[in-house]
């Protein structure tokens, strides 16, 4: 065996071992735990669970909530995608920002804001009570469905929008020439072709609904409405290790639903990858004529009402004490004083920031290296790691958290420290980085690297001067997503955090569960501010670049803006 081969095989073995130890072993332990009985192995845990009426209720609630919220998300997301992609409404930028707001703001803050808006003593419910004679109870099945639907609409929107734009325009023109009117064409060409994308977006929304912990935790736990994810949480937190076996069995059930959905979604994506063009076409396809203004303002108004108004209510309420009227006389900064002086909250902010930063650093290095080995070297070990990592992303967060407990308690010095959170975050989010780095590298023609090698540049120089400049932006887009998600994470930390390792999400959750809504609102307001700041800054980057570019009028060294990836 040559040295090259030996090195290669050692690499494969190392990759396989990593995949096995970090990604697959926790899941195996979970399955084993669910099968462990006092007598050995068997399905008694499942049998006992399914005999319990509360389990059946949890399963039933999970399915009802997932299906109904998916319907809301599909309608909302698809309609907005259609308006933005095809019609001539103005202010599309704002429409997109408003539509995507629930995507960038953590769902527990959205839930908190809806519960503030529709609190039993809130002004909206007072008004409804006095005019229509009823109150809206957000702590209900309907409330959970509504908030989840709103939270998951961006998932559908993001899936459908580029697909709609990629449908070639001449397919529409051909239909027009063949005697179809504009709306007939939209119906029988565009919408028919986009159906798989809508379905696959719906499937993603369904999976997100099953996976979601914060919405049913904030709204369902107080009202006694269990869904599978909160049911697992309650069992583990309430009964400790004695509930591990049944929690594991529940987790396997929940994962089965999620993995089935993921497989179905994969099939849908495969079906939809037909002959659409690669380029997105941003031209107006459906002029709305006289209806333009009404549609545009109705859409903007609706989005503002649903996605922004509750947040504003929350932010406002954070400036008032819990009891008493919201008048200027009652205005107070006391809640913020608490946020900025309380040691626990400060520690939580620090923890989340450190965790997010560390997760990003490790993911970007490991994820890009794995992606490179997969794309360019066709390394089977990298592919194995990727597949394992997508498994730990596809299963619900609460399940992964449980699996992490089972696995990492075996390794001393991990469970109960901040390391378990870091490991859990990487296990959960690494696949996002592998995916975005893979896409970035696939878009880079291999001949560019070969040319660099041919003209005498070493590996390091090729990376520094060729690969990174051309792929950095798409690679970083994945990292950015990981950063935002791990910064505001709740599901994993709710199970894995210990006394000194609380995260922001967990702090808000604890405050809310303790009935301390105003302080929870104040922490949320700070998080919203931080998120808005980060996105605002990232939006500024291209603007600054543009200004810089404009300053020296004609610099011959400047590459063609159409060829260079716009950073």
């Amino acid at each position, binding site marked *: 065996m040559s040295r090259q081969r030996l090195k290669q095989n050692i690499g494969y073995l190392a990759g396989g071992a990593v995949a096995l130890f970090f990604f697959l072993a926790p899941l195996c332990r979970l399955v084993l735990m669910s099968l462990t009985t006092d007598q050995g192995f068997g399905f008694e845990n499942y049998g006992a669970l399914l005999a319990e009426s509360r389990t059946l209720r949890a399963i039933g609630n999970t399915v009802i909530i997932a299906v109904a919220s998916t319907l809301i998300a599909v309608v909302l997301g698809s309609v907005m995608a259609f308006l933005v992609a095809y019609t001539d409404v103005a202010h599309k930028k704002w429409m997109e920002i408003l539509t995507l707001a629930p995507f960038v703001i953590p769902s527990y803050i959205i839930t908190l804001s809806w519960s503030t808006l529709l609190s039993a003593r809130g002004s909206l419910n007072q008004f409804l009570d006095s005019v229509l004679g009823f109150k809206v109870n957000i702590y209900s099945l309907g409330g959970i469905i509504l908030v989840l639907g709103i939270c998951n609409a961006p998932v559908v929107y993001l899936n459908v929008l580029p697909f709609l734009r990629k449908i*070639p325009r*001449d*397919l529409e*023109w*051909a*239909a*027009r*020439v*063949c*005697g*179809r*009117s504009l709306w*007939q064409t939209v119906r029988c*060409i565009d919408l*028919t*072709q986009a159906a798989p994308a809508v379905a696959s977006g719906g499937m993603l929304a369904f999976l997100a609904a099953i996976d979601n912990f914060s919405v049913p935790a904030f709204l369902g736990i107080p009202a006694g409405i269990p869904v599978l994810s909160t049911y697992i949480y309650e069992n583990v937190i309430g009964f400790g290790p004695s509930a591990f076996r049944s929690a594991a069995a529940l987790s396997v059930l929940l994962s089965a639903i999620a993995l089935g959905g993921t497989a179905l979604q994969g099939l849908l994506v495969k079906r939809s990858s*037909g*002959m*659409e063009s690669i380029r997105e076409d941003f031209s107006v396809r459906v002029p709305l004529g006289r209806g333009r203004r009404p549609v545009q303002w109705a859409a903007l108004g609706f989005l503002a009402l649903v996605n922004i108004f509750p947040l504003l209510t929350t932010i406002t309420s954070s400036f008032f004490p819990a009891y008493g009227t919201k008048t200027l006389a009652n205005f107070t900064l006391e809640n913020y004083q608490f946020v900025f002086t309380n040691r626990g909250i400060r520690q939580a902010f620090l923890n989340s920031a450190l965790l997010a930063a560390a997760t990003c650093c490790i993911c970007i290095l490991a994820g890009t290296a794995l992606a490179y080995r997969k794309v360019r070297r066709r390394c089977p070990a990298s592919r194995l790691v990727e597949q394992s990592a997508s498994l730990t992303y596809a299963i619900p967060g609460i399940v992964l958290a449980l699996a992490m407990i089972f696995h990492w308690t075996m390794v001393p010095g991990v469970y109960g420290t901040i390391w378990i959170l870091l490991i859990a975050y990487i296990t959960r989010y690494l696949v996002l980085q592998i995916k975005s780095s893979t896409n970035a590298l696939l878009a880079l023609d291999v001949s560019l690297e070969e040319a660099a090698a041919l003209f005498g540049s070493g590996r390091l120089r090729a990376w520094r001067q060729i690969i990174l400049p051309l792929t950095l932006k798409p690679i970083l887009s994945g990292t950015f997503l990981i950063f935002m998600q791990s910064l505001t994470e709740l599901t994993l930390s709710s199970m894995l955090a210990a006394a000194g390792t609380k995260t922001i999400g967990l702090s808000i959750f604890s405050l809310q569960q303790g009935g301390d809504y105003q302080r929870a609102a104040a922490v949320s307001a700070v998080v919203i501010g931080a998120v808005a700041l980060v996105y605002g800054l990232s939006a500024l980057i291209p603007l600054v670049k543009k200004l810089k570019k404009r300053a020296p009028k004609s610099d011959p060294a400047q590459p063609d803006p159409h060829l260079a990836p716009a950073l």
Partner: protein
Amino acid sequence: MSVTIKNVTKAYGDTRALDNVSVEIADGEFIAILGPSGCGKTTLLRTICGFVQPTSGTVEVDGKLFSSDKVQVPVEQRGLGMVFQSFALWPHMTVRQNIEFPLKSRRNRALHPQQRRQAVDAAMASTGLEKLQDRLPGELSGGQRQRVALARAIVEKPALLLMDEPLSALDAELKISMRKEIQDIHKLTGASIVYVTHDQSEALAMADRIIIMKEGRIEQVGTPEEIYYRPKTLFAATFVSKCNLVRGRWEGDCFWADAAGQNQPFARGPVEGCFREAGVCPVRPEEFTMTRIGMGLEGRVVNRQWGGREIHYKVECGGELFTVYAGLFDNYSEGDRVVLQRREAAREIAI
């Protein structure tokens, strides 16, 4: 179906995609719109089929007003057939469904299902698609897709067929063979065809008349022979028949080339005014005769490309490069000193 285009202008801001274009297309005529990219040929086609509304001017079809700055008959009510550059087959429909689609529109609602089936069968038969009718477009080769696009365009038996660079997505071999199929369809249907292309050989090979366009304006309209042998503008001369423009001066019907000896004129004959004003004489590459000694443009062979049927030379004369197509028997090498003359006879015989 006859089409009358009168003074059509289409402005996008300050730029004019079409600038005062007027042309008549007779019933059953095969007319090619030829020009480089960005010349407005596609805009003109899209004006005829109704995707573009003219800023001023009118489009009439069989005397009925289709387009003006005020009137715009919707595309779906124009009853045209069209073949797109990218074929524009709907990927979620089978070959048969694609071809049947036009017959299921509102304008064909009177059609009996039996008639519809017969029309689809006939369109598939005339394009040789019978065996492929249940395939999806994604499973077809380029040439087969092109046939489906053609069948879909003719299934309604439209009296006017529009084609937007239909062969440009095909490889060289297939391009030539599809030319015959398009000519056959023209004969079979008797429809007027408006055919947009940037490939002058396609236009010369198939069209009854050619419209040469440049920067939104019509440069010349004429039969392929007229355009080829009697270009009316410098652009038509260089774009279609690849003419070399020899510098010099016209005196009456005599042309004196700057780079040639002055004891006899370089060329004689009637010539368009624009060539007189520009002080050039158009000479097609095959119109040159090349000798080692004699009177004419003295130059040097700088490049030679053997082409089987003929040899293509680049000859440098007084700082200018001329393209010369010569027979296989006079074999020159790069660096050879040669003399170029214009062959008068070829011009006389041809016209």
